[in-house]
């Protein structure tokens, strides 16, 4: 085979591989949406789950997922921001920084089930929190921290050094330069990072099975006291999320309409994550346009 023919064959193979990958994605999304969307109704979204008979909904699971997401972001964002600022602004080039960077790499490559088990060991058992939203949110924070820290660090590093020098030359402290100049300039990137990590957190289940638990007790949505055990805001109650629910109905096999519930719930999960992805893109662009002169 001469080199021209080889070139054509290789190009053809690459095109075929690309088409295959796109095909896989189209199949995945198509399958989830086509089988799932018909099961998503107002009733499905607003009624409680049933264990042993069909017709159950996902109201509590959906709320738990969102609540857990909010708590996780509330805990993880400040820590990730501080760490990101340290790594991009203060970190000296020495052994300590090297160790920290390695630690973050290790944390980000740990299997989520190991992170979940650590949360189970430390919070559910040692600190006696029991299966609770709080334990789940902390476990998800551990799982979320490395990626969020890295994305914040990268966004901060993307800000040109000229901006920092301008701030310092005006006599501002480094901290003031960071909070007043660098952070606002990096905000679009940081927001995108947060929203993308929100998508990951929303779909995570392995870290939650043994921290937030696998049961969704009855809660009252009119009880706004977070300390009352029946309140939907109580962070100490066990909470099964949407992703855990999909896993549970499929593996336990006691719910007669497991297939319908899981396809409906998968569709909801995918749609929410798609919204997060689109939102990240849109918001990032919008904030960037608002804050800079870029057209």
């Amino acid at each position: 085979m001469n080199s021209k023919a080889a070139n054509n064959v290789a190009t053809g193979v690459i095109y075929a591989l690309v088409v295959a990958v796109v095909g896989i994605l189209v199949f995945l999304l198509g399958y989830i949406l086509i089988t799932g969307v018909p099961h998503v109704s107002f009733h499905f979204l607003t009624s409680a789950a049933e264990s042993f008979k069909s017709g159950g909904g996902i109201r509590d699971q959906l709320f738990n997922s969102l609540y857990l997401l909010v708590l996780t972001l509330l805990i993880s964002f400040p820590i990730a921001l501080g760490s990101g600022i340290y790594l991009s602004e203060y970190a000296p080039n020495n052994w300590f920084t090297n160790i920290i960077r390695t630690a973050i790499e290790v944390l980000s490559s740990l299997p989520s089930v190991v992170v979940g088990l650590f949360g189970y060991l430390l919070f559910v058992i040692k600190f006696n929190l029991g299966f609770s939203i709080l334990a789940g949110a902390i476990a998800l924070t551990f799982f979320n921290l490395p990626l969020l820290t890295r994305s914040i660090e990268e966004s901060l590093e993307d800000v040109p050094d000229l901006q920092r020098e301008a701030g310092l030359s005006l006599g501002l402290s480094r901290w003031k330069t960071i909070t007043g100049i660098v952070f606002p300039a990096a905000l679009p990137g940081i927001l995108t990072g947060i929203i993308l990590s929100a998508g990951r957190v929303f779909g995570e289940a392995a870290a939650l099975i043994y921290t937030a638990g696998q049961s969704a007790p009855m809660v009252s949505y009119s009880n706004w006291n977070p300390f009352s055990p029946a309140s939907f805001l109580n962070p100490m109650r066990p909470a099964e999320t949407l992703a855990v629910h999909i896993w549970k109905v499929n593996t336990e096999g006691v719910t007669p309409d497991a297939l319908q519930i899981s396809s409906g719930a998968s569709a909801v999960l995918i749609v929410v994550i798609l919204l997060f992805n689109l939102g990240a893109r849109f918001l990032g662009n919008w904030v960037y346009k608002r804050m800079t002169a870029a057209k």
Partner: protein
Amino acid sequence: MEGIKPEANDKLKMDGIKKELRNPSKATHQDYFGKTISYICIAFVGLLVLSILYFITTRGLATFTQDHVSLWAFLSGSNWNPGMLDSHGNPEIGALPMIVTSFSVTVLAALVATPFAIGVALFMTEISPRRGTKFLQPVIELLVGIPSVVYGFIGLSVIVPLIRHAFGGTGFGILAGTIVLFVMVLPTITSLSIDSIRSVPMYYRSASLALGATRWQTIHKVVLRAATPGILTAIIFGMARAFGEALAVQMVIGNATLMPHGLLTPSSTLTSQLTTGIGNTTMGTLPNNALWSLALILLLMSLVFNIIVRIIGKRGSLK
């Protein structure tokens, strides 16, 4: 001011200036404040990693220190039945079936995914950068975004019945696990390969093309050679993800703690055994400790993957 002599007034003024010059300014205080906050955050992250390593390690070693199971029996035994004793009176905790299954699905998934990943990466970097980035970047991001339980659910409701029809048997097993993991590691390997191919300097390509090489010759003799360390790193990261993936695999692997006899028999990975077992055992008992030892293997493998990546990075950068 009349009562104070002019010299005294000057002295007061001088004292003020002296104080201002000698003591830290407001800006310095601000900086200390900010530095402290960021140090606390980073120390927290470091402490967290240390405590994860410490807790999982001490619990994972309990099987060997408290229950006096030999490490060799644990790693090479092929019967997993932690509640039972075998004919010699030793507990039956042989983790070999899980270890073999975990490694099989990981390696197979990476082997299947790599050609696809490199194909997509080459398309996006060498063949059609503009269209590639516009259409394929979102494809990759969406594949990353799909949660693992959804992959598991599709595996359970599409792949497993398909395998059952095509090859007989239950459909659960390493093959189903491989197919699901292949799709899950594909985006990881692809996006890291893209980064590494992009970082090959443009003049390498220009030089090769100027010598009369075709695009494919340039790609496989120059670009891919130069990007090899990066692509290897990408594959290792993909394998790390596949090795640690729990729920998607657990849903399609069959969860029988038996030595796999081929791609189609139900078996169990380390992660799937952990997710099914932890809830059914009591803290501190041997069956529970044995599960923590499985978690320890997962942790150690994740560290090994990290070390391999570092070694590749170092050797790659020397050239």
